[in-house]
């Protein structure tokens, strides 16, 4: 069969990417206008124009005041801290950027703040405004060596204690390792929660410190929690992460744009396709192109199937942790079918790496829609059966209701997104808030639950699977759009092999693309998608070369696991296990 259909017969006449041109987002003017409006309300903001979000420069000593003003301003209410990360520009006088990204649930808008920091300077801590920024600041300290004044516990978070240097600095060699021996394993002594400090005298028990994980069946292999117990009550807890820190961000900087795609698969490996979508669409946004309809359609279908698969893994393993093994066997049957669908498209099972910047790697097989329909038909009976088995089960309800509770204010203040936020009653879903892939054209609802406990998170996940099925059924009814699956742009898509062998031009394009890669214009962008457990966003900085200058993936698990200690204080170990599973912490994403 000929593959010539992928390229049109007419030679490409569009603009060639001129290297090192600045990136101007399509909506820069709108964002600048909105930015000026915000700057007039909050003092201390200097607008940086021409960005994809309202972006401001803030002085180092002003940042806490600005954050507090943005948080408290009655018309703005930037209450949700989305992200905090660093970037290194060694040629500048103040070499580091500390970037804050906030979201306003009230106005459905995002804002980006930047603080320029020199090598020996420090930034005041913002943990007083957003408690969720505690770990983010530790991460920036670990990766860049930027100190945060007044931070309660500023020590390394992702790398180990014997590590030397700060790996995301540009002058750090990507392969420089530091070995850890048995003696270097961090000794943690959890702080007793304030409400239990005074009770020690009255207690009948001696307080015991217990280590859970990282190699513990309920800790999913890579999480570690140290708890202090008073009898059976947890009175203090501290988490340690980084047991799967495999240097995603540094690896991105040493690979080309297309080569980054497999790394994004391995962030949240339970819903790999959604990460691909986020990354590819971020780069496509920079390149100013959008994938063909057919590719967008397949992306949507696979995203929703993988979202269901993600929830299946979460619910299944959580129920195993609770002792209900049967549901795991039931749910993994239809999950295998979903995985088989991805395999029929790409040849790989769990981590398909099926997307490319500009579209898809290859077209879908001819029975794609028929197979999708089969899976959509078979899924409801499994969901119903498992729901019937557990949700009205008295043992299950007593183990989950009122367990692992986090209030709505705390969840927002920590920066929760996804099902865990929706379980506290906040209807925030990126697919509704800033739709992509045409989600706005489908008829579906955002499920929420009240209470913010483990049971509520179960309820939300079950209902989300049904809503995903609704989207899928509508999509299947619309049918597969005709046309190519890859953009017709030789600076992004490889020409088909037949043309490479027979045409001079295609040969040159092929050579250029392999040797020099995709070269987006100079600039930065952020693109969020709704992942299996919250907002997955990709912040991409390009310097016009074939390698990304900086890629930051917003990990939705990160603030969720950060809040875990707060959830389990005052409860027992079995409750802590039940709560952890329902948070769906995926270590690949948590530790990058």
């Amino acid at each position, binding site marked *: 069969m000929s593959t010539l259909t992928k390229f049109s017969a007419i030679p490409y006449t569009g603009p060639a990417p001129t290297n090192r041109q600045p990136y101007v987002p399509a909506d820069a003017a709108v964002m600048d206008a909105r930015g000026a409006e915000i700057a007039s309300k909050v003092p201390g903001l200097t607008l940086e124009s021409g960005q994809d979000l309202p972006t401001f420069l803030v002085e180092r000593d002003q940042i806490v005041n600005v954050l507090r003003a943005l948080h408290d301003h009655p018309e703005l209410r930037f209450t949700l801290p989305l992200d905090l990360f660093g970037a290194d520009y060694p040629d500048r006088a103040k070499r580091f950027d500390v970037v804050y990204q906030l979201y306003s649930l009230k106005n459905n808008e995002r804002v980006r703040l930047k603080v320029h920091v020199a090598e020996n300077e420090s930034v005041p801590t913002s943990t007083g405004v957003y408690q969720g920024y505690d770990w983010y600041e530790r991460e920036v300290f670990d990766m860049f060596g930027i100190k945060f004044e007044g931070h309660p516990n500023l020590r390394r978070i992702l790398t180990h204690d014997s590590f030397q240097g700060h790996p995301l600095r540009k002058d750090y060699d990507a392969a420089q390792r530091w070995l850890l021996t048995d003696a270097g*394993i961090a000794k943690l002594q959890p702080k007793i929660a304030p409400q239990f400090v005074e009770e020690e005298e009255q207690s009948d028990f001696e307080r015991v410190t217990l280590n859970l994980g990282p190699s513990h069946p309920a800790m999913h292999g890579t999480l570690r929690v140290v708890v202090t117990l008073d009898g059976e009550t947890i009175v203090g807890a501290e988490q340690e992460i980084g047991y799967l820190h495999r240097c995603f961000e540094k690896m991105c900087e040493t690979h080309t744009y297309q080569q980054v795609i497999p790394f994004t698969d391995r962030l949240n490996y339970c819903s790999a396709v959604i990460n691909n979508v986020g990354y590819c669409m971020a780069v496509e946004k920079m390149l100013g192109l959008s994938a063909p309809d057919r590719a967008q359609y397949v992306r949507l279908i696979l995203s929703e199937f993988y979202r269901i698969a993600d929830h299946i893994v979460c619910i299944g393993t959580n129920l195993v942790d609770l002792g209900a093994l049967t549901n795991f066997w039931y749910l993994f049957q239809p999950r*295998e079918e979903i995985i088989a669908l991805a395999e029929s498209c790409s040849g790989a099972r769990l981590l398909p790496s099926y997307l490319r910047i500009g579209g898809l790697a290859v077209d879908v097989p001819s029975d794609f829609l028929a197979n999708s329909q089969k899976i959509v038909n078979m899924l409801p009976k499994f969901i119903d059966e498992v729901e019937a088995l557990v949700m009205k089960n008295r043992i299950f309800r007593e183990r989950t209701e009122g367990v692992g509770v986090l209030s709505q204010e705390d969840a927002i203040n920590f920066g929760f997104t996804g099902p865990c936020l929706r379980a506290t009653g906040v209807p925030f879903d990126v697919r509704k808030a800033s739709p992509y892939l045409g989600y706005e054209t489908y008829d579906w609802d955002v499920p929420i639950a009240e209470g913010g406990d483990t049971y509520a998170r179960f309820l939300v996940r079950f209902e989300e699977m049904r809503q995903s099925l609704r989207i899928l059924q509508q999509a299947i009814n619309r049918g597969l759009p005709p046309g190519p699956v890859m953009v017709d742009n030789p600076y992004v898509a490889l020409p088909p092999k037949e043309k490479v062998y027979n045409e001079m031009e295609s040969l040159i394009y092929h050579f250029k693309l392999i040797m020099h890669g995709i070269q987006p214009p100079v600039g930065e962008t952020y693109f969020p998608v709704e992942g299996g457990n919250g907002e997955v966003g990709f912040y991409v900085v390009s310097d016009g070369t074939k390698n990304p200058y900086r890629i930051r993936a917003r990990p939705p698990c990160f603030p969720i696991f950060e809040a875990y200690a707060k959830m389990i204080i005052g409860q027992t170990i079995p409750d802590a296990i039940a709560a952890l599973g329902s948070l769906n912490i995926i270590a690949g994403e948590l530790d990058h």
Partner: protein
Amino acid sequence: MPVQNIDREDSIIPRKAGAAPGEIPEKGLITLPGEADREVEGLGSATYLTTKLDAVVNWARGNSLWPLPFGTACCAIEFMSMVSSHYDIARFGAETVRFSPRQADLLIVAGTIVDKIAPVLKKIYDQMPEPKYVIAMGACATSGGFYRAYHVVQGIDEIIPVDIWVPGCPPTPDGLMYAILKLREKVQRGEMRRQ
């Protein structure tokens, strides 16, 4: 309530017909090594066989490997697929998953091992009783995979000895199953790793 199953005609997973004992298996199909041509010969009317104790012990040991999944990353999800309904490792006697190293004899290292967790892996391995076997599942455990990076162990044989390496990123469940069957052959041959 009836237990839900997926009918064969509804399933989209491509299946190959299995081979019954005595039949020649379809080419390319992963079945039990030597399963098809295994026959008990020369038994006649006798009701017992004579053999060596070693052989019986190794036969039993190979048929009941108790794995400890040291699952850290993506490979652990494929390990879960392997033990769950569709692939069902119970067919080969290795379904008794134990998270305590003192109750396991097969360590399956599924996922990337980074410098921070390396001492933990070493400790777990040291705690397992002899005889013990190790499967390095996937590219990361084998060689660090495509993470040639500042925090990733470039193959677990930096720390502990390995019996079987499984390629793939992640390996398919049948790939891991094949590794367990290969290990079973090795155990039943009575091979021991040199300490």
